C-alpha cells in the first residue's frame, strides 16, 4: 500500500529564517506530487505541483519554492519567511490525473 509522510508536524520559525519541509511517498513510482497551503479557517490553495523529477509548476507567485530531487520526494522551501507564510501545509500525491489525491498529515507552520 502507498503511504505519504510529511515532516515536521509542527514548526515555529522567526520572520526572515529559512524553511524546508519534506514530503516522501512510499509504495508507488512516478506519482504526481502537490503542495497546498491552508490558512486558518479557509480552504486549500494549490502552491506547486510536479509530474516528475525536476519538473515543478508554480500556481501562485509567492515567497516559496519547491523541488523534487528524487521520484518520491517533494520539498517546500523558503530563503526568508514572512509572517504571511504561516499556515497549514499539506503535501499530496496521486497516481495519475484520473485518481484522487491523497494527503499527508500536514505541517503547521507558525511565524513569529
Amino acid at each position, binding site marked *: 500500500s502507498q503511504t505519504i509522510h510529511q515532516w515536521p508536524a509542527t514548526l515555529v520559525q522567526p520572520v526572515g529564517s529559512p524553511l524546508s519541509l519534506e514530503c516522501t511517498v512510499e509504495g508507488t513510482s512516478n506519482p504526481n506530487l502537490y503542495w497546498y497551503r491552508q490558512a486558518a479557517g479557509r*480552504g*486549500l490553495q*494549490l502552491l506547486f*505541483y510536479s509530474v516528475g523529477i525536476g519538473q515543478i509548476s508554480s500556481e501562485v507567485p509567492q515567497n516559496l519554492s519547491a523541488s523534487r530531487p528524487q521520484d518520491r520526494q517533494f520539498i517546500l522551501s523558503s530563503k526568508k519567511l514572512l509572517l504571511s507564510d504561516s499556515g497549514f501545509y499539506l503535501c499530496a500525491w*496521486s497516481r495519475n*490525473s*484520473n485518481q484522487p*489525491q491523497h494527503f*499527508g498529515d500536514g505541517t503547521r507552520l507558525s511565524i513569529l
Partner: protein
Amino acid sequence: ELKVEQNPLFLSMQEGKNYTIYCNYSTTSDRLYWYRQDPGKSLESLFVLLSNGAVKQEGRLMASLDTKARLSTLHITAAVHDLSATYFCAVTRLYYGGATNKLIFGTGTLLAVQP
C-alpha cells in the same frame, strides 16, 4: 478562472435528521471530489464523481453530480456525532494533454452535529 463555492459555510445539525451541502463551480470540469477534514488533521478522500448523474454512497453520506448545473450535493442521512467535521468539495480541470489534475477547493462546510 475556475471558482468553487460551497453552502452553507456552517451547518449545525441535530442527530437523526437529514441535511444537504451544496457545491457550485463556475466552469466545465472533468471531475469532482469530496473530502473530509477533522480539526487539526489532514484531508480524507470521500468520493470521486466522474460523470453527469453520478451518485455515490458510503454509510450515511451520499454525493451526486449534475454537470449541466455545475452542482454537486452531499446528502447526510440521520446525522450522527461522528460526522462532525469540515467537508470540502474540489473540482479539477484537466488541461489538454496534461498529466496532472489541479484541484480547486471550495471554502468548506463545517458540520457540527448536536445531540
